[in-house]
């Protein structure tokens, strides 16, 4: 079973509503929410995969009713409390905020250009040999779930679980989110682009030659023979 964020292929959503290119933020609070959450990445108390999982763990009812940046703040509040960066009483406004020993890590205004342009690459030296090459046929594992942690983080969408596809390219060796979100280290694995015919994924594909490509780690895949 999967979580509420895994919505690829779901029926019942309405039209996609285009918007002009110059509309970067719709509300002033969107800007602040983006900046507050990004800035606290500097504290080093969580990584990208942990923060994604915190959003995915929102209650399905909250995930559905929250707008985009409300989801960010929802997951962020969870991370702040779980890592002890703030207390529940501080969050609720029931206690005077105590100075934090993480304060020296806070980004200074003069550092922003540098840290944003530095990024955080996730490719790592190869320590697992690639099992597959472009052109090989593979089957995605049958469960869109974390294989170690029940309800844990994974990047295998339910719509591709169990599907048969073809290796399109090897991207390199990348950190495995399923491990990295749960304190099991980076556990890098070969990462592939895998192409699936739409007819393999959907009962009613729009066109016989349409395809969907997903990026999948080696442990998400099995050979067909």
């Amino acid at each position, binding site marked *: 079973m999967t979580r509420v964020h895994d919505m*690829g292929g779901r029926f019942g959503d309405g039209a996609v509503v285009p918007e002009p*290119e110059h509309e970067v933020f719709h509300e002033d*609070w969107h800007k602040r*929410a983006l*900046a507050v959450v990004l800035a606290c990445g500097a504290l080093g108390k969580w990584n990208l995969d942990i923060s994604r999982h915190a959003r995915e763990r929102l209650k399905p009812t909250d995930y559905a009713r929250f707008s985009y940046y409300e989801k960010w*703040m929802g997951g962020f509040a969870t991370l702040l409390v779980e890592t002890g960066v703030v207390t529940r009483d501080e969050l609720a406004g029931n206690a005077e905020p*105590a100075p934090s020993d993480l304060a020296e890590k806070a980004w200074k205004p003069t550092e922003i250009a540098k840290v944003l342009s530095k990024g955080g690459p996730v490719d790592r030296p190869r320590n697992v040999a690639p099992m597959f090459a472009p052109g090989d046929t593979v089957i995605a594992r049958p469960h869109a779930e974390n294989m170690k942690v029940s309800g844990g983080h994974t990047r295998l969408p339910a719509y591709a679980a169990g599907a048969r596809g073809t290796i399109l390219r090897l991207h390199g060796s990348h950190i495995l989110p399923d491990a990295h979100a749960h304190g099991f280290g980076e556990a890098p694995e070969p990462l592939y682009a895998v192409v699936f015919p739409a007819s393999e994924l959907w009962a009613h594909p729009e066109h016989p030659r349409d395809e*969907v490509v997903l990026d999948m780690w080696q442990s998400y895949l099995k050979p067909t023979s």
Partner: protein
Amino acid sequence: MPHDHSHDDPHALLPSDPALRVKALETLLTKKGLIDPAALDEIIDTYENKIGPRNGARVVAKTWIDPNFRKALLEDATSVVADLGYYGRQGEHMVAVENTDAVHNMVVCTLCSCYPWPLLGIPPGWYKSDAYRARAVREPRKVLADFGVTLPEDMAVRVWDSTAEMRYLVIPQRPAGTEDMDEEALMNLVSRDSMIGTALAGTP
């Protein structure tokens, strides 16, 4: 405040109005010394004014003009765009995918909202919407219709679901009648949506 959720969730300790919720978080974290509001202003200024889809448009225009650039980009987009200064958060691993007469490419992130920030900026609201995330993989042609785009019947659609940290840039087809246009003029034909794959390049 509706009592349809448990107060065990940390976010439920905060004001429910989202603008007040951000304000409460910013005030608390500033008092604890964990964020500097002036640094937040810099982050906002970066994504509001400095980094946006004109970066990607320049890459596309160069691809149209220079066959060697195109070849290098398709082989190793990360280093080619980094040489132009387009590198950073959410763009550490880039792949460029080229539209042809046979295939139209379209990018989505069904699991969250992965998007090539250094080339296109912050993703638009529709890219982050449930409707786009749910529908783009199953019925890309109906989604394209929402954008007013109809593809030829013999053209396949290849949808790229950004499930890892690879970020995809669509290179739209160069429109006819643009042979004499320079890079700056060509850039004006390249919309943000055409580099996500929900639009075609404009016509002169």
